[in-house]
């Protein structure tokens, strides 16, 4: 498979290795986080006028889903401000390694080394998402809570345990970053095998040991790598590459997928389905229920949410795999089939989230400049755009841009389903029921968008 190592270009390598550019981006992101926290806690409670909600849920979220994750993989994780205070405290340094580290440095419990906690954290945030999306104070409190949690985790456990095992957005980015045309890998695993000190993992004077607790030579997907670039700095053998590659290269090998990761594919696809239906669908009663936290209506929403993402969709998916079973003795068990076929849903899930986010962005983008112009709701007009009226973008196109995004994801997923079915010896017969499952999910979203 064709790959182009960006670090072969001297200036690109210099930018990646130098800490200045990354730190500048981190500090920029940190400034944004501080603005969001201050505005969320002290600014106007009107969500569409407050940078906390507007910057985070309209600008950042859309940029993350539509651009950053599909095209740059986990690059956001390398500049994300949420874990930085904890990481700086843990290291006792912002740039180069010093002997001033703090914290207990415990290893993350073996039993919890999976995506299950991240799955749970994502669902937890999702259940409260409508109030959080619309109320600046709750957005600020959520982000502040995540910062404090990451500090606490950094003081107790080693490295970026928070990012790797707990961050609700981290798991989301991890799964869909497999579709990206960018990866960090070693050039030659044999070189790593002969390198006894493994400075990429242990650290050296030039950089920290992998904060994500990954051994670069063992990377087979983007899931475990936060692209923090430390291994690029610590490898004395110049054996680390940042490759451009065909999109979705990680998805070609589904044999390595664990159940937690496979389940996440369905969890996130199901969440996108629920979000599209609740937030952009026809029922205002559903939206009110999702917003009325603590009421009986909200509990019913929670039950329905769980039913769809944990029971209905997985059951339908399993059914599709079982129906496609060719009846040969070598065919997989339902659990194995689930794991092998679930990564095929990654493109469809990513497309569903992208379509949802594009729709939300097109409708609400015109809130961004007014909110920045008067970030605290004090009547300022810093950018001269405070009085800018709300104006949806692309209304005359209807929902077709969203449908096109969905169809790209569906075609891509269908290709992966067929490839897995062929690998397993099931052929088109094994693929057809999974295609039907994908079509069903896509149809519901299309119905919400255009019907």
């Amino acid at each position, binding site marked *: *498979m*064709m790959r182009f190592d960006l670090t072969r270009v001297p200036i690109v390598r210099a930018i990646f290795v130098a800490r200045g550019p990354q730190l500048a981006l981190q500090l920029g992101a940190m400034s944004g986080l501080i603005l969001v926290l201050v505005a969320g806690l002290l600014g106007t409670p009107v969500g*569409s*006028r407050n940078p906390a909600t507007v910057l985070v849920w309209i600008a950042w979220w859309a940029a993350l889903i539509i651009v950053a994750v599909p095209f740059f993989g986990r690059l956001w994780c390398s500049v994300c401000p949420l874990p930085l205070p904890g990481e700086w405290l843990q290291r006792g340094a912002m740039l180069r390694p010093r002997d001033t580290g703090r914290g207990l440095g415990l290893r993350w419990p073996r039993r919890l080394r999976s995506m299950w906690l991240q799955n749970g954290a994502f669902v937890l945030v999702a259940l409260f998402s*409508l*109030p959080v*999306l*619309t*109320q600046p104070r709750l957005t600020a409190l959520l982000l502040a809570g995540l910062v404090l949690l990451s500090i606490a985790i950094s003081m107790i456990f080693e490295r970026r345990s928070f990012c790797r095992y707990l961050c609700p957005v981290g798991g989301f980015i991890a799964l869909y970053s497999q579709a990206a045309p960018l990866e960090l890998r070693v050039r030659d695993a044999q070189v790593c095998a002969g390198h006894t000190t493994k400075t990429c993992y242990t650290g050296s004077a030039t950089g920290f040991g992998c904060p994500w607790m990954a051994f670069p030579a063992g990377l087979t997907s983007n899931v475990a790598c936060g692209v923090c670039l430390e291994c690029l700095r610590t490898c004395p053998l110049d054996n680390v590459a940042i490759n451009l*590659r*065909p*999109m*979705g*290269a990680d998805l*070609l090998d589904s044999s390595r997928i664990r159940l937690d990761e496979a389940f996440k594919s369905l969890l996130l696809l199901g969440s996108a389905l629920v979000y599209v239906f609740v*937030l*952009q669908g*026809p*029922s*205002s*009663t559903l*939206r*009110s229920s999702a917003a009325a936290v603590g009421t009986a209506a909200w509990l019913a929403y929670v039950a329905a949410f769980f039913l769809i993402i944990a029971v209905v969709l997985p059951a339908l998916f399993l059914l599709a795999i079982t129906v496609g079973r060719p009846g040969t003795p070598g065919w997989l068990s339902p659990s194995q089939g689930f794991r092998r076929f679930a990564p095929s849903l990654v*493109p469809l899930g990513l497309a569903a989230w992208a379509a949802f986010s594009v729709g*939300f962005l097109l*409708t*609400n983008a015109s809130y961004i400049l007014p909110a920045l112009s008067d970030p605290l709701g004090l009547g300022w007009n810093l950018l001269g755009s405070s009085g800018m009226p*709300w104006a*949806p973008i692309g*209304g*005359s196109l*209807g*929902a*077709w841009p969203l*449908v096109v995004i*969905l*169809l*790209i994801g*569906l*075609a*891509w*997923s*269908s*290709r992966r*389903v*067929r*490839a897995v079915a*062929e*690998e397993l*010896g099931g052929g*088109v017969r094994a*693929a057809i029921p999974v*295609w039907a499952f*994908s*079509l069903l999910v*896509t*149809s519901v979203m*299309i119905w919400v968008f*255009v*019907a």
Partner: protein
Amino acid sequence: MGLTTQFSKARVPVLFVLAGLALFLPWRTPVIAPVERTVRVVARDFAFTPGTLTVNPGDRVTIELASGDFVHGLHVEGYDVNLTAEPGQPASATFIADRPGTFRIRCSVPCGPLHPFMAGRLRVGPPVAFWRALLLAVLAILVGGLALRHSSRAKTADQGFP
């Protein structure tokens, strides 16, 4: 030569022809004489009631917007319709529903926490766009799924998304 291999060879022109058919093939819909319609829409609790306005192509539609709590707006995407109503002060606008399809109605005045999600629909004619999109979805599956060469080459042929 199997069906899938043949499809692989001819997939680009076949794709265009089928997509064109799905998008532009005339859809037989009942012809209904245009009428004048007046619809009263109440905006309250971050919802429009009724949530879906159904009219026929060519109808002369008057929307009367009444607010039941705060100041609300009503914007019909795809049509140049913008209304703002305060409690006790309804507003109205008239337009010809000359574009078939389903169009989102949104509140155009920040009215509270759920304002970004305060939406309804204007449906002009039957939901043809849905069926066209569904045909395209089936086509997408065929393109993605059947484009892959036969089994023995599946693993090597699939080099990511084209």
